[in-house]
């Protein structure tokens, strides 16, 4: 299954390499990794999605914590959260097709960024399946080019802990019980 991690890291050179290298070295497959600034200039925030089973997800979390520059890891897979991906899609359109495609974009609440005689460039933001849905209906027209940012994610409500170190439940034991410890 897809696991989504929010990872707070020190905003320092080379930290992205350390995180990426960890996933490569431990043979975890990254599906998507995004990184950007946060409300604190000294902290960067990554959203990482990984195709992994439950045990692997726990190992990923524990291994991320082993990186000295990693401040906090939250596995928000089973949390109520907002997940967004952004895509720009360039579709080939003839004069006759243009209005159809504009109509489809409207249904998906996508924006048109650029109109050319034989193409349309559309921007769409949303959960991944929404973007996949738009792509499916655009494909018959001919998708000339596409770029996606990868997902960013945030917990709903005021629950988000932010980049603060604190106690964490990191894994379950052989009986499925939480193994806890304090930091």
């Amino acid at each position: 299954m897809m696991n989504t991690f929010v990872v707070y890291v020190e905003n320092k050179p080379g930290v992205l390499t350390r995180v990426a290298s960890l996933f490569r070295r431990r043979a975890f497959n990254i599906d998507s990794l995004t990184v950007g600034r946060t409300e604190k200039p000294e902290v960067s925030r990554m959203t990482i999605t990984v195709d992994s089973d439950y045990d692997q997800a726990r190992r990923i979390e524990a291994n991320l914590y082993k990186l000295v520059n990693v401040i906090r890891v939250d596995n928000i897979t089973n949390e109520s959260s907002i997940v967004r991906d952004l895509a720009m899609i360039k579709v080939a359109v003839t004069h006759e097709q243009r209005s159809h495609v504009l109509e489809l974009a409207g249904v998906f609440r996508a924006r048109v960024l650029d109109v050319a005689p034989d193409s349309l460039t559309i921007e769409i933001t949303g959960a991944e399946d929404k973007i996949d849905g738009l792509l499916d209906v655009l494909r018959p027209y001919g998708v000339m080019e596409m770029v996606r940012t990868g997902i960013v994610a945030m917990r709903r409500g005021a629950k988000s802990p932010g980049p603060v170190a604190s106690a964490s439940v990191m894994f379950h034991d052989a009986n499925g019980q939480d193994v806890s410890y304090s930091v």
Partner: protein
Amino acid sequence: MKDEKQSSTMTGAGILWECLEREGVETVFGYPGGAILPAYDALKHSKIHHILVRHEQGATHMADGFARAGGGVGVAVATSGPGATNMVTGIATAMLDSSPIVCITGQVGSKLIGSDAFQETDITGVTLPITKHNYLVTHASEVARTVREAFYVARSGRPGPVLIDITKDAQQTTCAFDWEGAEPQLPGYRPDLSPAPKEYDEALELIHKAKRPVILAGHGIIISGAMREVRDFAERAGIPVALTLLGLGAFPASHPLNLGMMGMHGEAWVNHAIQDADLLIALGMRFDDRVTGNLKTYAPNAKKIHVEIDPAEINKNVKVDVALVGDLREVLHELLPRIESPDRSEWLDSIDRLKGDAAVHDIQNLPDNGHLYAAHVINDLWRQTRDAETIVVTDVGQHQMWEAQYYKHEKERSLITSGGLGTMGFALPAAIGAKVARPEAEVWVIVGDGGFQMTMSELATIVQENLKINIAIINNGYLGMVRQWQEFFYERNYSATPLLNPDFAKLAEAYGIKAATVRRRSEVVPTVDTARRHDGPMLINFHVEQEDTVYPMVAAGSGLHEMIRRPSPIVETAEDE
């Protein structure tokens, strides 16, 4: 009153040595070169003793041996490019065995980084996966904090190697030196973990319910300094103790509850006890594949308790029922007052019965038939040195396993060996580090003829530093362990394993090291005694049985109970040839 140096202006190189001194460093192992020259120039103002090695790999193993023998942090220094890449094997060795070392490398000037300049290597990139953490320092003002952080990270939590790569200009330029103001700033680094109370309750319940428990004692006991606590725990709960290779010495070999080494070359009764157990209590060990054999059949009826400081080790190889994440010594302090003392004589007796069965196959119980066996050499060496404060430093291969079987370690830090990475060439330089850390100890290198030739250039370092180190080469003319695998699994096709060797005694003499060659068992004890009495290093070249085999053996992928046992009697096997 403020320290005079606290606010003075210094070069990055000067700050480097000053910070090392403040971290308690008295000796570093290194090799100079272009990009580290400013640091070597500034060394003249430092009280630190620099030991010139013959290869940078040697410097890292020396730092490692220093750390393992003395419990401090070892320091190795090298230049950029090839100097730095030569350190890679030693860093990986320290990483897999959780050994705290700090490696300092010079780097080309910061303006030249990325230009493929002469002797430029991205060593922080190269060592990323084999260091606990690493740093690239491009300004003199970053030196102090980086050194303080590096030492803190190296020795705290689960220890490991840290590399500091310092550009030439960062060494040369000056800045204000402020030790107090350069405190570590590591917001994400939390080495001090402790288990939640309910984990203790669950662990105690399992311990008190168990009928056939076994303690698995690892390197973490020694790192944590929990020897006393483990002994109290085992004695109070009446639980037998099996040790990993790196755990040897953590629990006295002569203790009635000591079963001996477990795993691939563990004695049969140890592995059977683990397979029959209903509870395994893993103390500072990580269920390495050399210890578990096939995971599918590993201790199938046992509940497992894992006491471990590194959360990433929990459930990595073996799923456990209770995990106590934290410092072993502290965890045992919590557990000890609550441990009950049930009668476990039935369980201990059943292990003893297994032991009696295996002991008759033991080469040590067989008469001297004129052949010199490595097991005899090592056992005789143990008998001669057992009453002294001895550190044995072994290399990797057959001799390493025989040492683990036949040298009985009573105390922690009396065996230094490369376990996780299995680095041939480790022993000789690591022994130099061990001797520097504990000059009063008697240091013995036990090394194969293959591994010795990988780093024998450090003989010169021994002479240069006038170190009293005794070297026992277990010379069988083969890469013995590889040959053994070829014998068992490749139809005796001894591909590339026979060795053409120099006369090691003459080689030692060329360095000015006293030497002897031994071919008979009767010569072992007198020659060992000569070496012990000799006022300087001595090398003994033991010509041992060429096609001898380490038994028992759990083949890779086999279950821990599926051992290739010693043939009985072994004497006939040897004379068949």
